């Protein structure tokens, strides 16, 4: 995903001279392609995330569209007040890009597990929260981010994620018209149970459903905030059973966002029945042992 992101950002920067990339001394062997091409719009701010977000905000005040790139919790939790007060309160065109969603840096330990970021970022006003599942969604979101007005958080996996939206797996691969808040059907056989998921775990769910012929439909959510409510309404009206998947704490994450909105739809009488919603997420705990992404997902029972 990070390669898809940086390659698309270089393309966007060709068209738009306002695009600026700041890295927090991370991105070795990833961001150089941008740096080489646009040195005047590139900066390594060092290992100083609070300052980095302030600097990004100052640049954005002068018209730049600023991408702040780092990994894990460093560009989010480490400097969350700068994101809230400087970026979001002033509604500036800063994009926080974090690589290593969930357990992508599994063996590096809990410091590098990015498992509370959705909860934190989605409560901040003006913030769009993006969580692409594959390189294709990543490219589309990067394009959208080059023109969106206001702050965005882009939660990326790491490297080597497989493509979900390709013909042999999915009939619904036409992402040309992706809008902020869209929901993408991945598998739709009109089954009784819908799996709603966000991030790179969508691929493993897709494989599980196809390979073991499970009776589930699958939807990818590239956006956690906003979610186009009409599209969500159509999904929840059609399924009595829903399972939400995310590589994030159960509290305040993607599944919580779905439940909140379904609740509001039901409370307002927009939907007539309230589906049963199961949340598959991290169960309010840290991990204290070595494990790669696959094994840590398994440990947290993040599978169908």
């Amino acid at each position, binding site marked *: 995903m990070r390669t898809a992101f940086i390659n698309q950002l270089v393309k966007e920067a060709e068209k738009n001279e306002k695009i600026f990339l700041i890295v927090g001394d991370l991105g070795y062997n990833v961001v150089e392609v941008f740096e080489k091409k646009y040195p*005047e*719009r590139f*900066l390594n*701010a*060092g290992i*100083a995330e*609070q*300052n*980095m*977000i*302030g*600097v*990004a*905000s*100052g*640049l*954005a*005040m*002068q*018209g*730049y569209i600023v991408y702040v790139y780092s990994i894990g919790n460093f560009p989010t939790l480490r400097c969350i*007040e*700068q994101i809230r*007060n*400087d970026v979001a*309160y*002033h509604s500036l065109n800063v994009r926080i890009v974090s690589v290593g969603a969930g357990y992508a840096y599994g063996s590096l330990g809990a410091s590098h597990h990015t498992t509370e970021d959705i909860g934190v970022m989605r409560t901040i006003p003006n913030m769009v929260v993006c969580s692409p599942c594959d390189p294709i969604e990543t490219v589309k979101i990067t394009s959208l981010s080059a023109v969106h007005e206001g702050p965005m958080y882009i939660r990326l996996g790491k490297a080597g994620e497989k493509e979900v939206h390709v013909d042999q797996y999915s009939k619904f691969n036409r992402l040309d018209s992706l809008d902020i808040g869209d929901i993408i059907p991945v598998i739709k056989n009109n089954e009784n149970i819908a799996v709603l998921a966000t991030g790179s775990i969508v691929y493993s769910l897709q494989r599980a459903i196809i390979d073991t012929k499970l009776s589930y439909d699958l939807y990818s959510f590239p956006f956690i905030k906003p979610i186009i409510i009409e599209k969500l309404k159509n999904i929840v009206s059609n399924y009595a059973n829903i399972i939400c998947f995310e590589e994030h704490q159960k509290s305040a994450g993607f599944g919580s966002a779905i439940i909140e909105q379904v609740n509001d739809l039901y409370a307002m009488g927009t939907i007539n029945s309230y589906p049963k919603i199961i949340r598959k997420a991290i169960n309010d705990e840290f991990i204290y042992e070595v494990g790669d992404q696959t094994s840590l997902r398994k440990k947290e029972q993040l599978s169908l």
Partner: protein
Amino acid sequence: MKTELFAKQIRRKSLEMVNHANASHVAGALSIADVLAVLYNSIMNIDPENPLMEERDYLIYSKGHTCVALYAALALKGFYPVSDLDTYGKKGSPFISHVSSKIPGVEFSTGSLGHGLPLACGLALAFKRQKKKNNVYCVVGDGEMDEGSNWEAMLFACQNGLDNLCLIVDVNKLQAMGKTVDILDLENITAKFEAFGWICRRIDGHNLAEIEKSLSLFSTSSGKPFAVICDTIKGKGVSFMEGELRYHYAPPTDTQLQEALNELN
């Protein structure tokens, strides 16, 4: 308006606003009043008729809790009617008790400490990259220098040669719970800035001529960021408030307000 009178008026309005709104933080407004008067009267390139003038200088006011001094200075300069200040701290007013960028002339909202200098660095970097001549001034308090983000920004400003950035530190020597020297001692602050690669001057922050002289030394061709360390007195200008910690919080009573205004007549 002469700078001396301007500074006095900033103090008078600040005291009135804090009294009327039953608000806090008047003492830190009184310590910075002279610096603001000089900045707006004779240093910064601004146009009250056109607050968003492209070639303007920017002031990032990081000690946002002492907003009354800035609100008063901008009103007295003509950015908006002085009578607008009467709504300060009142329900529905845009004059929030930590400085708000919804007010004409205020570039950036602050309130949580340690945010202004990194932001000012970003602005200064933008002007450098865009080859623009705008200067960026930033005002922080000495207590605020406890925040690590400032020291990150100090490294950054030097690394990036931000000689269009001028930081003013209001060293009034008191922070929320006591003396700065007893909480996190900043001294020798000039040596610290110089060690971080800044050009640094230390002055009497209530001597108008000295403030003006030091700020005029700020040169945008030095290759280095510039800091003016202003030794000030918290509560300056009102005898019973000077150096008194309680006026970090307590507004002047009606009687005290009258007494203070008499002193500033």
